[in-house]
């Protein structure tokens, strides 16, 4: 393979992707081999074993469960692995670079965003809630909030006809009804009960309940049903002057426990809400017993968090430049499993991909969006440039599109080619 002067190393190439399997033979490679050379080697092997294999593909290589970025010997040294024994190197097909698509210019900062199968829902600092197609075509927009809209979410991502919810600093949330594809948005139910601005909203996986949290430090659970009769809760009809009629809904439950504002509310499962707060804690609430199930305490104020049902872990970003991966199941010692550091300013938003347990997206005040693999802590897979101000929100609910909104009034859409293959 190479001159004998250089020290060599035995590797075995393994994979979990059947279509790219190569014969399981130990190979001797120079110790300083890097990803490029490994790619070349693997492509050669694939060509030999499979004659249908024509186009060279790019792969990422993992040793010791971390993506190899450095020459192999340095990588192994970093993870304290001996170079004497045969090293198992797993390879996966490289996640292709996301392709920049349209950008949607808003009138003001975009505070929150969520995409569904066909539509992108955005909440804006100009008090408006907007719906766009993935090609950037505005469908509907409505200004019914009196203050900055801080959070938007579809009630059911697969079925936009079930409506969506927005929360705002005017201390209310609104459940909207929207006929898919039209520009008619009707505020159906007003969620009243918060005493300060509402920052975050989350809908349970079964689309029955909504959790909101905000600056009054309370977590409130509401019914997410559009239908007023079925919810079976005390609600009174209220007619606002010169406006369409909306119903007022009061919270089913108010959960107190945080000392400072709640920045994120996410549902873990149908009965568990996870909240990350500025008081340096992440709390897991049981929504049947209405108590705290679990708590993660750290040193810094949390700005964002995302729960992955695939890996059962929690990503959180605090008021610093790191993203931390927590495993709430581990009970002893530090529950921070790893730390992802590449951003230079506060990370305002993180979100897991919903199809791969390793991929996630983060947006930061340093005006970059980064796509990460959990197996590579020090460097992201891709930097998605384009924003000119702080990135305030990112979303990957629709696995085909990476969307982000920021203080440059823009929403940038990136096409994730990984899923189109």
């Amino acid at each position: 393979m190479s001159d004998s002067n250089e020290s060599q190393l035995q590797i075995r190439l393994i994979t979990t992707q059947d279509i790219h399997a190569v014969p399981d033979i130990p190979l001797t490679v120079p110790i300083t081999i890097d990803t490029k050379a490994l790619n070349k080697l693997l492509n050669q092997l694939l060509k030999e074993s499979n004659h249908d294999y024509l186009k060279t593909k790019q792969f990422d290589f993992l040793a010791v469960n971390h993506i190899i970025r450095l020459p192999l010997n340095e990588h192994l040294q970093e993870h304290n692995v001996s170079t004497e024994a045969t090293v198992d190197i797993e390879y996966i097909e490289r996640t292709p670079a996301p392709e920049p698509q349209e950008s949607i210019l808003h009138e003001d900062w975009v505070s929150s965003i969520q995409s569904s199968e066909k539509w992108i829902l955005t909440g804006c600092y100009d008090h408006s809630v907007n719906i766009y197609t993935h090609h950037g075509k505005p469908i509907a927009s409505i200004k019914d909030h009196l203050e900055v809209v801080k959070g938007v979410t579809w009630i059911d991502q697969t079925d936009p006809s079930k409506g969506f919810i927005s929360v705002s600093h005017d201390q209310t949330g609104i459940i909207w009804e929207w006929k898919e594809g039209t520009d008619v948005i009707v505020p159906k139910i007003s969620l009243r009960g918060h005493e300060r601005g509402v920052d975050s909203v989350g809908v349970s996986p079964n689309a029955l309940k909504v959790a909101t949290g905000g600056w009054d430090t309370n977590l409130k659970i509401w019914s997410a049903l559009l239908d007023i009769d079925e919810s079976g809760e005390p609600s009174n009809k209220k007619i606002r002057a010169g406006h369409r009629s909306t119903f007022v809904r009061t919270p089913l439950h108010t959960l107190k426990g945080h000392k400072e504002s709640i920045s994120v509310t996410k549902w873990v499962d149908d009965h568990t809400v996870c909240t990350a707060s500025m008081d340096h804690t992440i709390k897991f609430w049981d929504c049947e017993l209405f108590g705290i199930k679990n708590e993660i305490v750290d040193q810094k104020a949390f700005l964002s968090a995302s729960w992955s049902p695939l890996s059962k872990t929690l990503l959180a970003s605090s008021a610093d430049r790191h993203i931390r991966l927590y495993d709430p199941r581990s009970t002893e010692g530090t529950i921070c499993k790893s730390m992802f550091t590449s951003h230079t300013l506060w990370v305002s938003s993180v979100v897991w991909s919903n199809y791969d347990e390793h991929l996630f997206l983060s947006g930061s005040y340093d005006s970059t969006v980064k796509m990460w693999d959990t197996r590579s802590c020090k460097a992201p897979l891709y930097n998605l440039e384009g924003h000119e101000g702080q990135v305030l929100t990112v979303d990957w609910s629709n696995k085909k599109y990476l969307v982000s909104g920021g203080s440059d009034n823009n929403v940038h859409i990136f096409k994730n080619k990984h899923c189109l293959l």
Partner: protein
Amino acid sequence: MGKLQKPLKRKFDANIKEKVATSTSEHKETDEENEDFLQDNEEVRENDSSDSEGDIENSDSENENYESFEEESEEDNDNLSESDAEEKDSGGEEQEASSSDEEENIEENDRQETNSKTVNTTNDEYDEYDTSDEEDIRNTIGNIPKNWYDEYKHLGYDWDGQQIIKPNTGDHLDEFLKRMEDPNFWRTVKDPQTGQNVILSDDDINLIKRIRAQKIPDVSFDEYAPWIEWFTSQVEQMPIRKIPESKSSFLPSKDEARKVSKLVHALKMGWIKTREEQAKLRAKKEPQFYMLWSTDDQPEEMRRIHKHIPAPKRLLPGHAESYNPPPEYLFDDRELKQWNKLKETPSKRKLHFLPQKYDSLRQVPAYPRYIKERFLRCLDLYLCPRAIKMKLNIEPESLVPKLPSPRDLQPFPTTLAIEYKGHTDMVRTISTDKTGQYLLSGSDDCTIKIWEVNTGRCVKTVITESVVRCVEWCPNGALSLVLVACGNQVLLINPGVGDFVVRNRTDEVLKEVPHNDVIVTERVKSTVQWYEPEPNMYEKGVRIQLNHFKMVSQVTWHGKGDYFGSVMPEGQSRSVLISQISKRKSQLPFTKSKGLVQRILFHPTKPVLFVATQRHVRIYDLLKQAQIKKLMTNSKWISTIAIHPGGDNLLVGTYDRKMLWFDLDLSTKPYQTLRLHGTAVRGVAYHKRYPLFASGSDDRSLIVSHGMVYNDLLKNALIVPLKRLQDHQAFNDFGILDVHFHPLQPWVFSSGADSTIKLYSN
């Protein structure tokens, strides 16, 4: 005694010896079976020497003897020993068969046996135990180490003087085979005297085991036999020993009698005295002395000089003093001239003598000044008092107080997180609301702005009529109000952010103008007028407007949020004004001018007002209307003050680059003076929750320090500078104008002359 002991000992020795000897002789026969040459040897000996033959017989007989003894002593011995004996017998028979010549010998042996038995019956101890003759006859070299023959082929000489050739010792292979095959290999040892292999018997092994176990080798010896007390104090009726009594035991000694009589005579004559008589005499004659000085018994010199200081040492003579100095030390003409020139002032000379050269030491004349110099030296030492110089060895490091490492004092702001951009001129003042959601800033561009802290979004801008010099958010959470000092006005503005209910209630409360009966004095009236705002001002959020007669430089809330104080530095005796919102009333606490008032501050809990004038900080009790304290800052111009949330510590920033920490319980002088900044300090602030304080100065640097105040009154505050943050741009020689901490997080805001506000997070 000697006679008594010796036989006993010998008996014991003999016992052991005999056992070893018998064991060797026991193996002799088995050896004979194995090794033919030995037999030959023996035959040679038997044939050639009658003496040695007798010896053999003797030993044999003793062997038998031993056997019999064994049988006698241990009748119920195990079968092994008996079979051994049988084997031996059979061995004997074989021997008979092998050599017919020996038959006679055996017969003779038998005879001898009976003989020896009969001999044994007689009590001749020497015959039985003396082992001098039972040396192994095969030892042909006498009592010398065998290794002396290591280099030779032979081992000793036989009767005819012929060399006895050494037996073939087997090589390693033989040895290995033997080890494999011979069951007795492990008990085979080489006799160092004869060089032959000897198989140890069970008894020998027992013996060796006993010796190794440190037991008495003789099995039959009873260690715990009852003690027989032969020699006791009791007089026996019969003597134990047959030694006759010595003569001296019953005849008196004449010599002793002579000595005694001499002593008796001396006593009679009074030549010697008994001890009692001596004591009596001593008591009669000797005078009674006692120590007058307690230190009398100590050395003489220590009594006079408590701390001896040795005379200073003189310098050792150098080359110039030598009788034969090197030529360069000898004076040339010029030096000599110089030396002579200084005749009048000899003390100025470099040397006090002329170096002189002599060929030999013998030629050196007597030194004429010797006596005089010695005398002068003595005079020096005598007249010049010596004193011990106390030297303090202080290492500079030990003087520096031990401060904890900043890493242990986390969290504190370290990194620039967010910049709040939007103002177009210097941002003079900043403040935050109680929850830390919003930031308020006032700038020279005649605006106040409200920012969302977490995103850096400007939420609201209110345009004022003139430069905003001070803003402060109301500390009362139930009121949504901010205090703004701009120009001659003080504005109470409802910022319109936060809780709706609070906002609306604030407006409602402020709408009701309280009915006021109290007549406002002319003095106050001329100082300030309360106004309801114009509708367009109301629209902006202004709820109450106070017009002052002079420019207002600072406004500050009382902790409860009802009173506020305002400062007009040019107002002379009316420079400090305290106003109450609920009554829409103002009052002037001071009748006299106290100097140029820089800042005022309310105590966080007590009704106490701090007034910082140009050089001092005065503390007033508002209830008693009296001055409590006057803090001496020892600086030229105070710029700003901040109070610790506990209320007992005050931080003063000055234009002469200093920061002064006052512990109000401690003294009126600064507890610590911090000279951290290069230029005027313009803003200081304490954190409400964390033990942090920060200062901003014109040198553009924001310095975050740890300021821990302990509840323990005996423990002084711990002050550790932690971090210098220098991100602001300089603008007209101004750097940072105001510093403010986030109310909840360990974050700090700094507002600069470069029209930005920066947030530093941990």
